[in-house]
């Protein structure tokens, strides 16, 4: 197994773990962490692409993803905090007032 294939498999596995976590967890902070894992899986893939193609542009994109993840965490944590203040139990299922 070549090293590229190994990295590719790792990335896919990380993404699957993150996606499953985001889908099964009900705690907002746990969901945020799962989303971070998915973002990192994507980042790994980008860095691998940069290695294979040998350009610097993809590494720049990876840096952008890092910044994006930080911004996303800020907003996500703020949302989680707001949810903690309103609901006795931290469960995203409880926040369903906007249903049609």
């Amino acid at each position: 197994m070549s090293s590229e294939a190994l990295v590719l498999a790792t990335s896919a596995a990380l993404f699957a773990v993150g996606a499953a976590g985001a889908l099964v967890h009900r705690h907002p902070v746990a969901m945020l962490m799962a989303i971070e894992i998915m973002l990192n899986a994507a980042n790994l893939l980008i860095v691998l692409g940069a290695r294979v193609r040998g350009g610097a542009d993809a590494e720049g994109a990876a840096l952008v993803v890092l910044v994006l993840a930080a911004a996303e965490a800020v907003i996500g944590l703020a949302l989680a905090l707001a949810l903690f203040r309103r609901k006795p139990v931290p469960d995203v299922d409880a926040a369903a007032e906007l249903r049609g």
Partner: protein
Amino acid sequence: MMPLLAWSWVFTLPGLLLTALGVPSSRNKAGYASLAGPPLLLLVALAALLNGGSYAVAFDNWLPFLPDGAYRALADPLSALLLAILGFVATLVYFYSLGYMATDPARRRFFVYLDLFVAAMALLVLAGNLAVLLIGWTGVGISSFLLISFWRDRPGTLSAGLQALAANAIGDGALLLAASIVPTGCGALVTLQTPRCTGGPGGAEFLALLLFVAAAAKSAQGPLYFWLPNAMAGPTPISALIHAATMVAAGVYLLVRSHALLALAPEVSLAIAVIGVATALGASVASLYQTNFKKGIAYSTVAQLGYMFAGVGVGAPFAGLFHLFTHASFKALLFLAAGIVIHGAGGRESLSELRGLGRFFPFSRVGFLIGSLALIGTPLVTAGSFSKDAIIDAAIAKQPIIGWLLLAGVILTGLYIGRLFSIVYLAPPVDVHAAHHDAQSERPMNWSLVPLMVGAIAFGWLGSWLQATLAPLLGEIEALPPPIDPRGLLAFALGAVGFGLAWWYFTRRAEAVAMAPGQPVAEGEPTYRAAGWVSVLADAGYAVARSLSRVQSGGLPRYAMGSFIGLALILLLREAIR
């Protein structure tokens, strides 16, 4: 005469300056200085039209950043015809306004704006290239805004004016783009179709599409119709001059002027025809539901402009232009006649308040009747039949579906104009004392109608002469139908049936104003008369909405699962297609 005509857009500027500077100074003579401009324009345009020939003005490098930055004006029989229409309607509207605006404290400002409009409109018509056309195009848009919002302290006038400005900005943008993408040295309107000039990005199709967007915005076609009914917030003479006879016809004029370019872009021509017929039918239906007298007529204008667009779109530019010519007189007549009743009722415009008041204004009643008969195309005795039949015949010959739809639409024309006429002029009045006569201000208004009545009756007979005059400009022209023509008679029969139905329905029911199902029967009464099919449709819509709203469960995990599954499906689909 053509060299003089090429500069005729300055004719109203002295009047503009004098009126703006307060000459004559007495308040009840405000605007008198402006009265000379439009008749002068009419006389010069008529003389030029009779003498023929053409004359071009060019100053190079006037706007050096455009591909063709010269100042080019072109006076030829086509622009002379448009200027004659402008001069004719403007002259009558100026005199009419002396009565309509008699007691308005801002009468001076009104005439200044009118002068500005006539100058911009004349410049638009005389434009020889896209750059000058754009100046006139924007100028009429701005003066239209100023006049729609003329009574700026009344609620709704400013937003109506801004809507017009917004819609016009779309057209201005398209025109600016067209003026910018043509190859260097191109831009003269008569040479846009040459191979060198269609070599810009997108070719002839894109250029034609841009001109079509500009024309549709100015003439309130398709989705850009929305501003014209709201433009009725302005004074009635403005509705007659700008929003019925001249400015909204500028789109049709542009398409007629560039007919050779449209011939190179058959898809765009088809789109023009389809949009035209769709607008004609949709606006005719919309007119039936208006509770405001002027808005009812405004939708009729949108519909008639749709007929003109359809005529140009099927490749019959002369038929569209001819309808523009006759429509200018009978639609201005309808508006000015309506204005007399509105003026007599103290500015009220809603149909329930004007109900039956028309019978106290005999000039207005006769004028509106003649205008209505011309609108539905009464053969021989009105102008509308000649031009509408020309459009319908040409459309049936070239695009049969569009042609028969236009023919069938005449029944809607009869219905909506019959409805307005029956409610305002035939129905028994609700309140006899709601109408007031003021002989001093009514006299100029009444007499302004007479030339328009003559025009609405007789202008159709000028068709073959116009055809001979314009033939060198428009290339091969389709033959005009004879005055009595089976399809024309069928169209008139449909229109008459619609008119009769409307008369039967609206004069018998004291409370019927709009045809809308579900309207309250009378004020303060909770009963709604909803027809059976209306409630079935409403229930069906409600059931669909309720079943779809279950998707919006509000649960975050379900949403996340939904987006994952959706993404997976899209990726699978992509692989499957590959």
